[in-house]
């Protein structure tokens, strides 16, 4: 009896500590009290949680660029971000915008994000303090979600196509300006690297980065850098603490989920994704394997009758010796296409793909060292990727053109004039 109470007390102490550690590791994490209130769906917890979700889900949110959005707009961004990540609970998405509601649902959403994968680690990686120069990154990982663009237009009323084209044009201009400014950045980086040759204390680096140059030029900025490093340290420490004691949080989240289900059993959802604690890894794999088998079965079922029909149609054609060259050519073409398809489906686990940020270093000699990566190789990889993407774009474009041609053909007597330059 006493032992159980002691255990309960131990848990009671461990939970706020776990939540506190979690909140210290998140950017602008809320207090444990907010978490508790959210369990009971209290309205005062909601705005804080909306803000937090906005911050962690949108890459723009990290820079405070979205804080001056109206609460409804913020809610919209969060919902669309969750939706695009595949959030299964419809309760959050279905209900009308309201920033003082659904705090319990928000808590569930946050936990879902944390449970899915290395979410916290990704967040921490995003805000790493970098001392060296990085390649200008154009891509974010899974956290990349389009934020709200300029004017909000209601889609219920008819929109003039010209406005859409106008906005697309603006977007294109901004892309071009982005590329120009990246080129500019590269030129200037190159200059700084050239000018600061021989200045670095580490021989293998040889020249300074922008941050280092700035530090030496202006002692104020080194203070700021120090502060940034210290706060990053705090967050990392908190994250480690969290990993030690997170189990108690998940047990508590089970109770939150129970509370939710008991209150509104009518709100059904997809089977909730299990928290990815490592012991459950095999279970997931089993699920995936079963799905794959089912898909293969389906494919076979569809393919067989088609093949039979085709063979019936073709009859004895293509069997004789005079067809051998053609057949060989066809097989080769098919093999190449399959290889290309496979290549485009392969996850980018290419060894030359940087798994973590690399520092840009300008060097006279050829060898990049054990951890390093030559620019030429990187360029090659990116060029192959570019070629693949261009090919995919070309394919999609020709599909569109075929569709357009079909539509045009369906209306006799109509002449289509394509807009120039598209």
């Amino acid at each position: 009896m006493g032992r159980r109470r002691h255990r309960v007390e131990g848990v009671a102490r461990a939970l706020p500590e776990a939540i506190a550690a979690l909140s210290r590791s998140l950017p602008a994490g809320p207090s444990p009290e907010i978490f508790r209130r959210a369990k009971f769906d209290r309205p005062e917890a909601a705005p804080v949680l909306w803000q937090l979700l906005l911050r962690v889900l949108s890459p723009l949110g990290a820079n405070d660029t979205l804080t001056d959005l109206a609460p409804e707009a913020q809610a919209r961004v969060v919902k669309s971000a969750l939706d695009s990540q595949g959030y299964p609970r419809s309760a959050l998405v279905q209900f009308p915008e309201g920033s003082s509601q659904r705090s319990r649902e928000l808590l569930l959403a946050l936990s879902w994000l944390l449970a899915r994968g290395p979410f916290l680690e990704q967040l921490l990686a995003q805000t790493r303090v970098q001392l060296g120069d990085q390649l200008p990154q154009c891509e974010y990982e899974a956290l990349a979600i389009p934020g709200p663009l300029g004017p909000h237009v209601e889609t219920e009323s008819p929109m003039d196509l010209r406005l859409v084209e106008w906005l697309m044009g603006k977007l294109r201009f901004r892309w071009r300006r982005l590329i120009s400014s990246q080129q500019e950045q590269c030129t200037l980086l190159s200059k700084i690297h050239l000018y600061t040759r021989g200045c670095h204390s580490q021989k293998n680096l040889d020249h300074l980065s922008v941050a280092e140059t700035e530090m030496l030029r202006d002692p104020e900025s080194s203070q700021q850098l120090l502060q940034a490093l210290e706060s990053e340290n705090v967050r990392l420490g908190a994250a480690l603490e969290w990993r030690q004691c997170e189990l108690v949080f998940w047990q508590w989240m089970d109770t939150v989920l129970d509370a939710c289900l008991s209150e509104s059993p009518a709100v059904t959802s997809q089977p909730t994704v299990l928290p990815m604690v490592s012991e459950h890894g095999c279970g997931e794999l089993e699920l995936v394997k079963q799905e794959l088998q089912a898909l293969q079965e389906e494919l076979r079922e569809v393919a067989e009758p088609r093949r039979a029909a085709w063979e019936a149609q073709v009859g004895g054609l293509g069997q004789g010796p005079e067809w051998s060259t053609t057949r060989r050519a066809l097989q080769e073409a098919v093999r190449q296409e399959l290889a290309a398809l496979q290549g485009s489906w392969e996850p980018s686990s290419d060894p030359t793909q940087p798994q973590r940020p690399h520092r840009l270093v300008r060097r006279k000699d050829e060898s990049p060292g054990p951890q390093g990566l030559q620019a030429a190789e990187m360029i090659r990889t990116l060029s192959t990727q570019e070629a693949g993407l261009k090919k995919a774009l070309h394919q999609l474009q020709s599909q569109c053109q075929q569709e357009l041609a079909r539509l045009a053909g369906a209306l006799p007597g109509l002449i289509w004039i394509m807009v120039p330059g598209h």
Partner: protein
Amino acid sequence: MRSTISRLQVIHSLVFSTGPSLWLGMSIVTVQLGQCGNQIGFEVFDALFRDSHCSQGLCSKRENEAYQASCKERFFREEENGVPVARAVLVDMEPKVINQTLSRAARSGRWTYGQHACFCQRQGSGNNWAYGYSVHGPKHEESIMNLIQKEVEKCDSLSGFFIIMSMAGGTGSGLGAFVTQKLQDQYPSSLKMNQIIWPYGTGEVILQNYNSILTLSHLYRSSDALLIHENDAVHKICARRMNIKQISFRDLNQVLAHQLGSVFQPTYSEDGSFHYRRNPLGDLMEHLVPHPEFKMLSVRNIPQMSENSLAYSTFTWAGLLKHLRQMLISSAKMEEGIDWQVQPPSSGLPPLGKMSAHKDPHFNTSIANLVILRGKDVQSANVEGFKDPALYTSWLEPLHAFSTWKTQRAFGKYEKSAALVSNSQLLVKPLDVIVGKAWNMFASKAYVHQYTKFGIEEEDFLDSFTLLEQVVASYGNL
């Protein structure tokens, strides 16, 4: 460590004193094509230079220096002897005009053209668009693009290109269309604005209409913006506003250069700060020409009187802006003789997609406008009149259709001046006239062999007509 610090002091002076080109802004490389392009190009650089070194300024010394530095970085570069060099490439098929241009620049002593910035041939080859496009272009492509590349490499950061050319001339226009296309291929992420000289309505060149439609249609496909300067309009300004008796091309070109200068000289950047805008070309294009069907821009400025008459006049912002607005609405070419009867459609906006039945046919509907204000008390200028939704087409709100640039620093000797760059129906009628005339000629196949013999087929003509009819229709349906 000590050697590191001393080396850093050297770097500091090297990088961070020449380095502020970083925030001075991005550069524009100008390609001057043909007689027209070269003569105008000279006046443009001269106007920009004279304005940036104008002592009158009406602002603090420090601000004047910032203005000067910003203009300089955009259009000029430094050479060893300290004389600014225009960021320009001069191209012509005969040497006469280029030599004149070079010597005028050198004589002024204020600024100059680059030593190896010219491309010209021994003799011209007649006024033939097709020859310029299909023969001169490919033949001299490498040399010309190399020159441009060299100029581009001397920019810390490139915003884009000006291409100054006439529309109706022969070799210059054809070559200009060709060069613009090559710039599109080689510098896809850089912006391109063609400064196009629209010929006199009663021009003397028989083939000017053919040349015009070929030029326009080709540029529409490969350029981002077509800023059109009408000879007729500029001529009127010279005659009526400036009281010039014998109007020479030089007078016309100077008025034109003044207009361009009042658009592209430095202005404060958007956030109301006192830093100068880094990339006016980019900002302008984003505001005015994002739609691929609507690329034609006009420029109007006020006051239009010559600098010498200024001493006897004072202006208010309210007066200037009122006139400028009416010039826009009534498609006036100049400040005088404005039709004040034309008014925007009165009751609200027409429903989406429907033309307003009570719209005055003389009323000029705008898609987007940019007003640039320079001078004293500019912050007090009230531009609300330009934000009237009735001025604009129904599918774009004034919030997105209208923008203003400002600077306290006066332009030249004009204590207050305003310029308007407009994407509106101002050019539809002139364009329609030219297309009509060209079509009439084409229908009887007059002179077409002059083009077909150098590779411009009838089908190219038809494509051009189709494209331009589409442009006229699109602008007409606003």
